[in-house]
């Protein structure tokens, strides 16, 4: 526990360092309202998906299909829009579809007892494949500006993008669910010791199913955000995003083995990755550096706790 807290402190410290370095090196444009608006837009989908995924990983499972659900929901939006549905019907329908995708993952994991890693690698291909089947390789772009502007303009009078406001609201909800509710306590217990949780009367299967459904639904919401932000419904939207989200969650100090992690850490992780990325792009750093930095941060995030632990025990053992 103490190690985790230390890791989150380190994250906040890193965030401050990045912010200050960015501010100095870009002559103040890094923390300007305009840039923060773009930064917010860039991390919106990752931030959204990271919320339920944190819970899933804390419960000792993983969902790699989230980006494909995002793509499928985007494809569905385009397909239904072309079919003449109204957006007011499409959006709830798409969220339900996302929840269904999550439910399929969850049922395969809980009912058949399959490992979620394998299941969601399978549905990663399946859902992306379905997206391609639905929309093919075409793009649907003729959405009304009243909707797409949610993704391109800030909330009037502020520099806050709408998707970030949505993510913030959901973050509070998920934070409460994970850290202050009996549901969250069950999630931690399942991740730390599933059998023990079951023997304590926790409905392990139901909790896990709920988590996968949430992951699917939120991934679909992220798909809506993505579609309107780029006013482009395509089957290949968000390809590969799952790795970025997993990277952010792990960087946030969530244990890949489950049972440990905080939502605050994850949000800090998302911000750190997004901020660093934004800063590097502002600095015209070449893309390969971005790729390498992402990878290194991920390595550091898993190596750091084990190193601090080792140093800690050494220090304790010294006297």
């Amino acid at each position, binding site marked *: 526990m103490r190690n985790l807290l230390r890791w989150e402190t380190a994250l906040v410290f890193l965030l401050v360092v990045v912010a200050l370095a960015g501010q100095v090196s870009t002559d103040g444009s890094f923390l300007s309202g305009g840039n923060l608006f773009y930064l917010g837009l860039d991390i919106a989908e990752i931030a959204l998906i990271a919320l339920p995924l944190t819970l899933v990983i804390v419960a000792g499972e993983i969902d790699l299909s989230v980006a494909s659900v995002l793509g499928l929901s985007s494809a569905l939006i385009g397909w239904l829009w072309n079919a003449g549905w109204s957006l007011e019907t499409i959006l709830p329908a798409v969220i339900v579809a996302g929840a269904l995708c999550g439910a399929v993952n969850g049922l395969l994991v809980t009912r058949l007892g399959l490992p979620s890693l394998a299941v969601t690698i399978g549905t990663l291909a399946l859902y992306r494949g379905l997206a391609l089947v639905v929309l093919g390789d075409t793009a649907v772009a003729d959405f009304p500006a009243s909707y797409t502007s949610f993704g391109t303009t800030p909330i009037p009078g502020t520099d806050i993008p709408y998707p970030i406001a949505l993510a913030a609201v959901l973050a509070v909800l998920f934070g409460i669910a994970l850290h202050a*509710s*009996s549901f969250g*306590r069950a999630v931690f*217990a399942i991740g*730390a010791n599933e059998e*023990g949780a079951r*023997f304590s009367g926790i*409905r392990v299967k139901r909790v896990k199913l709920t988590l996968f459904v949430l992951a699917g639904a939120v991934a679909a919401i992220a798909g809506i955000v993505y579609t309107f932000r780029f006013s482009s419904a395509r089957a290949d939207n968000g390809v590969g995003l799952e790795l970025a989200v997993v990277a952010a969650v792990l960087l946030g100090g969530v244990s890949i083995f489950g049972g440990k992690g905080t939502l605050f850490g994850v949000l800090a992780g998302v911000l750190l990755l997004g901020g660093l990325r934004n800063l590097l792009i502002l600095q015209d750093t070449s893309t390969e550096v971005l790729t390498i930095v992402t990878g290194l941060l991920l390595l550091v995030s898993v190596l750091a706790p084990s190193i601090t632990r080792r140093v800690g025990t050494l220090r*304790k053992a010294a006297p």
Partner: protein
Amino acid sequence: MDRPPVVALDEVSKSFGAVRALSGVSLRLLPGEAHALLGENGAGKSTLIKTLAGVHRPDAGRVLVDGEAVRFSGPADALAAGIAIIYQEPTLFGDLSVAENVFMGRQPLGLGRRIDVAAMHARTSELFARLGVRLDPARPARGLSIADQQLVEIAKALSFAARVIVMDEPTAALSAHEVQRLFGVVQALRDQDAAVLFVSHRLGEVFELCQRATVLRDGEFVWSGGLEDETPDSVVRRMVGRELSQLFPKQDTTAGEVLLSVRRLTREGVFTDVSFDVRAGEIVALSGLVGAGRSEVARAVFGIDRPDAGSVEVRGKKLRHGSPTAAMAAGIGFVPEDRRQQGLVMDASIERNTALASLGRLSTFGLLRGKSERALAEDWAVKLRLRFARLGDPVGVLSGGNQQKVVLAKWLARNPSVLIVDEPTRGIDVGTKAEVHRLLSELAGQGVAVLMISSELPEVLGMADRVLVMHEGRLVEELARHETTEERVALAAAGQVAS
């Protein structure tokens, strides 16, 4: 017995962080002897064994093999020195065949250093024959009963003609018959001049098998010597360092209404047609050999496993099958067999573990009330005399006995009307054991119906108002308190019931 020791520890110390697990402990294992290692939980037995096994390196002191100081850099070195360890929890490879488990890393080789599978199977069969066991060498280890797993471990130790064999609670999972077999094997090993280090909480077995013993307490060496002049009482005194009051203090209570009623419960291939009642104020023991289906019945009653047929009723109301939630709502509490895996979340705090079964009661609209949670944990920590530093500490740092108290607290916090306890004192030191027994007795006195599963006959005899005996998945005998003798229970458990 003047021969030099095969293996000896000389003033060995070992610390983990601030915790001193062993300080200046010595041990001499002579060829041809069976030597008991005794001590309460947390006395340092496991650390000592792991030092012999090469898992831990001592901070100070020496490990001597044939009188020469050695440094084990890992388990492989210890194995090479002829030290075999049979751990309390079997350490088999479920995906591999039984024969490969026996010969892992030492498989007989044929042409081109390739493994000779036929030879390996043949040699495994030979070993099993020596143990009097019929197991297929080619079958995978997954699915073996705990007793069979233990036997594979023993065969493994035999397979490389070890000069020192360490057995950590080898009899915990074995039937009386198998225990006798094992003792025969130990005798045979002694005849071949091997040394056997025997760790057990069952003092009867210790006195039957061993010639000498070493006692540890709180990581320190207490005593070592021949057992011929000792009695179980004198050894226990050395272990706990104080006199013990009566071990099994069940008070007499009058049984009330039937609280738990199990009818014709069946789970295919596991247990068949099990029916019994437990009344308020009663402690009913479910006895039998390990693998007879006792724990499985308890799991099915609590809803962990779904029975194929039959019913479970609490206060006359039928329970939904396969739902721990329903069982809990009806007032059943369940202290499971395996504390570490099933009873507790080891990384979580004492407080959280205590509250884990009461989350619903501790929250409003799904939101937890932190104060109530803390108050609950504090309350039960006091009631059960839990020894701890902070309620926020992970439960994993507690001793086994204190961990068991946390499990009990978790269930008692729900005020259960039916409490199922599966091996409630397994691997617990003698002092805590007495506390647990007193607690169960008090609960019964308060009108709780207690169903107790135990492999220790003295415990069964001391605690139970009635004893149900299972054999191969069936309930074969029911004995009232006055009828119960060690012999009748043992006979019934072996399947020999006087009709």
